[in-house]
């Protein structure tokens, strides 16, 4: 029974979560695109000569945060850069996507990137318990950050704490690569048949939490990933 649940989580649920997430994002973006444009300009001055590149740079580098709350900015930049590296690191697990040496047992960043991301999420979560942020936060803010924290923490256990055992990596980059490759090619193979060891349950937990996150994403404020640039463009005219 447990094996069957693990299989459902690591294979069919991944497909459902990814499809759900992609359709959800598309619907959300389409709904905004279908709405009428605002009847007048929303820019603030001084205006920019090149509003589009400026909006892209503004969305990526968050200059207003740097100016007004440098500590928060450092954590935001670490978090966003870390997530970008982690996306690459997950792709790099695929046997045919080689950024790190093919025979390396490590993910890109040797697990450190995930730890940085986890620390940043913890900071985002803890600051919400302090006033005045506590007064403007809603339960969804805490739960989303908690879910993200759990995803990151379980990922850390796989990619970093995994190497703490005496015999080195219990599960290696190649093990995860085989699993991801199977998913990518719709082999429907049970990863438990190729990935073994005591840490498999951590992998299942990580995948389950990541599935949940993907399913929640289109309904959450993480959608700012797709709207940060158009929003910044409005301010720039």
């Amino acid at each position, binding site marked *: 029974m447990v094996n069957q649940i693990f299989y459902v989580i690591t294979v069919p649920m991944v497909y459902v979560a990814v499809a759900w997430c992609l359709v959800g994002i598309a619907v959300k973006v389409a709904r905004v695109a279908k*709405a009428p444009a605002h009847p007048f300009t929303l820019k603030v001055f001084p205006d920019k000569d090149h509003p589009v590149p400026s909006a892209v740079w503004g969305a990526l580098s968050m200059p207003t945060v740097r100016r007004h709350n440098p500590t928060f900015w450092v954590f935001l930049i670490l978090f966003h850069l870390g997530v970008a590296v982690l996306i690459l690191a997950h792709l790099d697990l695929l046997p045919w996507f080689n950024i790190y040496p093919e025979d390396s047992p490590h993910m890109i960043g040797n697990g450190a990137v995930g730890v940085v991301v986890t620390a940043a999420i913890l900071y985002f979560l803890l600051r919400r318990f302090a006033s*005045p942020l506590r007064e*403007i936060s809603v*339960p969804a*803010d805490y739960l989303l950050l908690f879910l993200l924290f759990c995803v990151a923490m379980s990922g850390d256990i796989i990619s970093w704490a995994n190497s703490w055992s005496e015999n080195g990596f219990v599960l290696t980059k190649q093990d995860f690569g085989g699993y991801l490759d199977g998913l990518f090619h719709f082999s429907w193979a049970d990863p438990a048949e190729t990935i073994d060891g005591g840490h498999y349950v951590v992998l299942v937990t990580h995948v389950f939490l990541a599935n949940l996150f993907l399913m929640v994403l289109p309904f959450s404020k993480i959608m700012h990933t797709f*709207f940060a640039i158009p929003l910044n463009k409005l301010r720039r005219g």
Partner: protein
Amino acid sequence: MDAKLKQELIQTFSERLSQAAKMYLENCSRCGLCIEACHAYASSPETRYTAVGRAQNIRRIYEEYFKKGKIAKKLNEAVELSDHWMEKVYETAYTCTGCRRCMTYCPFGIDTGVIQGIAKMLLITANMEPKTLTMLADMSIAKGKTIEKTKANFAIAAKNLEKEVLERWRSEGGEEVVPLDVQDADGLYVALAGKHSIIPAAAIMNAAKEKWSLSYFEAVNFGAFVGNPAKTNEIAGRIIEEAKRLNIKEVVICECGTAYRVMKHMSGEKPFKVITFAELIARYVEQGRIKLDKSKLPGKVTYHDPCQIARQGGIYEQPRYVLNQLTDHFVEMTPNRQANWCCGGGGGLVAMGEKDFRMKSAKVKADQVKATGAEVLCTACENCHTQLSDLNEHYGLGVKVEYLSDLTAKALVQD
């Protein structure tokens, strides 16, 4: 609240959901950065008066009626429309000055003005908006409809101002001192109701030998203050029609920030340019069409950037250029330009009275003025002028609050 009204409010809300509004309502991460941006919070730390605090009152209604999922609604603290909730909406909507300083803090640039625009429309639909503002807006509209009947009286009133204008600047022989209905004029000057808004401007334009005409309509747009787009457009439309009829090149808005923003940025494409009076003065000085005497303005002078012409209009340098021609003792406020603190009187607050709240919420502005050590506090917006004068009295700042136009007119060199 009855079901019919609730339905009408949901309909009103849905009609206000532009692309921008949807993005603003769905993407705020409640990071709290905007909290520090609001002068009301900086003066009296209550989160309900912050941009995010105000927006949450609307965002929570949005969660209830425009988002799906029972659990998501609970987690996002969705609320149903009720009389009690509408009172909360009122409290935060009509205490926001629309200064949009929070936009310069928000990493996404969320415009509180757009969200409070929804709030104000909901209150109008519920017949809960401040009646003073609606009444003033309706009076402006009514005046537009009966203008032909009142033109003769207006001409007499304009004629009565001539003496005071001539005291500031003698007109060229044979020319009208306060001209009306001038076809093909270079500038249509749109003043406020009150001679203080006409006399210095007339003196300056006459000194510059401008071909100008005084508008029959007052510039102020109470439709914008109350938050009613239809009334806003109707009030602005009277001036637009007048400018078209006279084939005007440039509409010059007097020292009224909201009137400028509405005419320049919120009224669509127009066959004429729109400028502030501060820009026109700067142009005259730059072109040598007027000369100013620096001895007329003794003491340290500082300048308050009115939000609606500065942050919302980009008019930062022209008033400073003029002031530097009027004095050698100009000092900046800190912060200034885009980061300047709002005076706390915008968004209709001055027109509504609300003196206790205005004084309490603008302490940070009073402190900012005090820190300059200036004796003269200059601005280029009537709303700001009234609020700054009240702050001056309330906090004992000991400054003289002056209009840029008035300082300029008093310093005109008679050649």
